[in-house]
């Protein structure tokens, strides 16, 4: 269903009335970032796969297309979205998956939405339909404004269409797991990542190191992990991705830190999951947000409050010069600040 014309009208009307809009796809990530304000604008009706030719490794779809529908179409042809987008138990759209920029356990090897996004058509805050990027793998014509949309949470434009690179599913993957402690797990993850293995998951959670790799890498993998490593249910990765492991069902505030992979554990054992080979940390029992932010900033990372109360300062604060650029870029795309205002930072 093509709702471009209706959405254009809605945006123009909202712009004329300075009416802020809350952009809603599947609603699976409403907990994320700063709270949404504004009049709800439902985008899930603008849906449908527009073109998919497996040998071109590209799928183009309207942004409201349910992720489950899109992934099923790819799976039928033995392909996948390499960034393993989370569902969080809801019914996300491909547009929301791109706009949030969130990626699952495969991210260090498969990339994030921004890595796979080849092109977009957007509706900006003036009601203009604009296209950036395209449907080809390599494209450096003009500034890369399509990747700029990935992770912007709709604050720069409503995604109408996305063209995303897809990849063949690996022919066979196995998950091995090993009981260990966080420091030893980090050392093993480091060793594995310095070898040319076909890895697709490296996570220490709840006392166990989990490793997912192509079957062709299994022998080398066992050589590093030793005989104590046993085969594990691959459903672990889905539960990690969708945050249904026991760790995630606790009720205290959940923090996410993005750091250089070899960064020492940030929290007590049991209060930290080390995913992405160490580059993504899920943390509980964080005492002071300032202390955490200082610690991760000192190693070149950043931290966000992922689930919990006090969402106003969810994202890591930006340096002043960077914040200024953000405001000026927001003004280019959405001068009246009607698109998801304040969803990332108060002044965007």
């Amino acid at each position: 269903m093509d709702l471009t014309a209706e959405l254009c009208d809605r945006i123009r009307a909202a712009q004329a009335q300075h009416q802020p809009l809350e952009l809603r796809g599947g609603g699976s990530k409403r907990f994320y970032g700063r709270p949404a304000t504004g009049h709800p604008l439902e985008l899930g009706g603008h849906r449908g796969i527009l073109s998919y030719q497996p040998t071109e490794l590209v799928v183009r779809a309207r942004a409201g297309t349910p992720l489950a529908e899109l992934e099923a179409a790819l799976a039928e042809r033995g392909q996948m979205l390499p960034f393993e987008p989370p569902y969080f138990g809801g019914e996300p759209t491909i547009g929301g998956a791109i706009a949030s920029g969130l990626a699952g356990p495969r991210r260090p090897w498969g990339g994030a939405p921004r890595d796979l996004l080849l092109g977009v058509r957007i509706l900006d805050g003036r009601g203009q339909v604009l296209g950036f990027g395209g449907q080809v793998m390599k494209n450096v014509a003009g500034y890369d404004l399509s990747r700029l949309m990935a992770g912007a949470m709709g604050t720069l434009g409503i995604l109408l269409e996305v063209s995303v690179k897809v990849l063949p599913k690996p022919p066979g993957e196995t998950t091995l797991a090993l009981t260990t402690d966080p420091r030893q797990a980090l050392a093993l993850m480091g060793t594995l990542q310095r070898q040319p293995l076909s890895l697709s998951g490296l996570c220490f959670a709840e006392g166990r190191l989990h490793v997912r790799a192509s079957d062709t890498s299994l022998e080398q993998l066992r050589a590093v992990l030793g005989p104590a490593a046993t085969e594990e249910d691959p459903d672990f990765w889905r539960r990690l991705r969708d945050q249904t492991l026991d760790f995630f069902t606790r009720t205290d505030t959940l923090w996410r830190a993005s750091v250089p992979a070899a960064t020492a554990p940030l929290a007590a054992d049991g209060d930290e999951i080390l995913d992405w080979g160490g580059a993504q940390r899920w943390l509980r029992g964080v005492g002071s947000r300032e202390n955490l932010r200082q610690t991760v900033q000192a190693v070149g990372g950043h931290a966000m409050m992922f689930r919990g109360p006090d969402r106003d300062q969810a994202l890591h604060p930006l340096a002043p010069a960077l914040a200024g650029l953000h405001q000026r870029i927001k003004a280019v795309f959405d001068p009246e600040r009607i698109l998801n205002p304040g969803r990332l930072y108060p002044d965007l």
Partner: protein
Amino acid sequence: MSPPSPSGTSQRERLAQEFAKLLPAEAVLYREEALRPYECDGLSAYREMPLLVLLPTEVSEVQAVLRHCQGQGIPVVARGAGTGLSGGALPHSDGILLSLTRFNRILDIDPLNRTARVQPGVRNLAISEAARPHGLYYAPDPSSQIACSIGGNVAENAGGVHCLKYGLTVHNLLEVTFLTIEGERVTVGSGGLDAPGFDLLALMTGSEGMLGVVVEVLVKLLPIPQVAKVVLAAFDSVEQAGDAVAAIIAAGIIPAGLEMMDHLAIRAAEDFAHAGYPVDAAAILLCEVDGNPAEALQQLEQVETLLAQSGANAIRVARDEAERLRFWAGRKSAFPAVGRISPDYYCMDGTIPRQHLSQVLGRIAELSREYGLRCANVFHAGDGNLHPLILYDANRPGELAKAEAFGGRILELCVAVGGTITGEHGVGHEKINQMCVQFTPAELETFHAVKAAFDPQGLLNPGKAIPTLARCAEFGAMHVHQGQLRFPELERF
């Protein structure tokens, strides 16, 4: 009306004195013979003399230079190694050329985090050389990797023959520090795999020096593959070679490299590099698989079968590393090889959906006859990036103009089939008119507004990459609207 800008020796000397207060005198070049080497980049068809060339060695000097330029309204063109192929570093006649080549230090190799922190003037290949003792390398490998600098790679979002599997520059960066035209230091990206806020790292990558001046880069390093195997296949037609590419991808294989060359390119490369190419073939494919031995050998076997099924009349796996390098040497020397069979050549850089390959090559052959200029084609077949090399002789009156016109037609053809005018070389000075074909006026205006968000006075690399709407009107090009192609002749395909 403003008076015509003064140029020539007196203005040069006065400006040189101004900048000599900010930089050591030897870092300020203003004599004609010193400026001459900087008048063009890798696209030598376009030349312009800058007022001055500056060669700072400290970030604080670059900051001082930028502040001075901002205050005085002096255009700044940043330049790395000058190997770019789109005139992106073509000097501005009223501006300074800011060379970053003295920023050539590798600041840190971090084997535990698998990263390298480097200054912008570090050569692409030097990063891999420094990382090799740790079993790591930097994946993007543009053909010019022996000479090109990482700062230039960031500015152009450089690709290479291995980017189908390992990605472009944008996929292999973690963090970039740049200076704004105000001389302010801004860091985008992070030491982790993402950063809060907008993805300005992606925006900076490929922005052709128009948003800021890159002063430091943190890149990802990857483990060196244990095994790399290359197979060469010869075909009687370009169509068959194209079908073979689709068959390999359809089988679920993403080769590390997948390159195609047509008949003229094969012959030129063979004469030049003696790579052992079959010179009678209409097209050859080079397909490289890599990884751990089990994986690579399994894929190699599959690829050989698929090539045979697609009608390859000869299939050869490189027997050893020496032969593998020879196979690649032919491909990597395709440009200079073509340079030997023609006084000049003009390299295009369109990307197309691969399914249109044989139609596009057929149309290029027709255009070649129409313009009376030969054209050799090399093709990053895996990702659809086509490099037609138009052969011409600049000493023959009108031939450069013909080559440009021919090239422009090829790029418009790429857009018409759903592709783009530039896959990896950038728009620069060269393809600016074709931008009018690929983008609508509203899209071009958005690009200009983004530029203004970084550089309100428009002093960083002015006049490149994004055409003004007035220029588009003059060029007479219209955006190709979906379903309303300007090329009715395409219907015949």
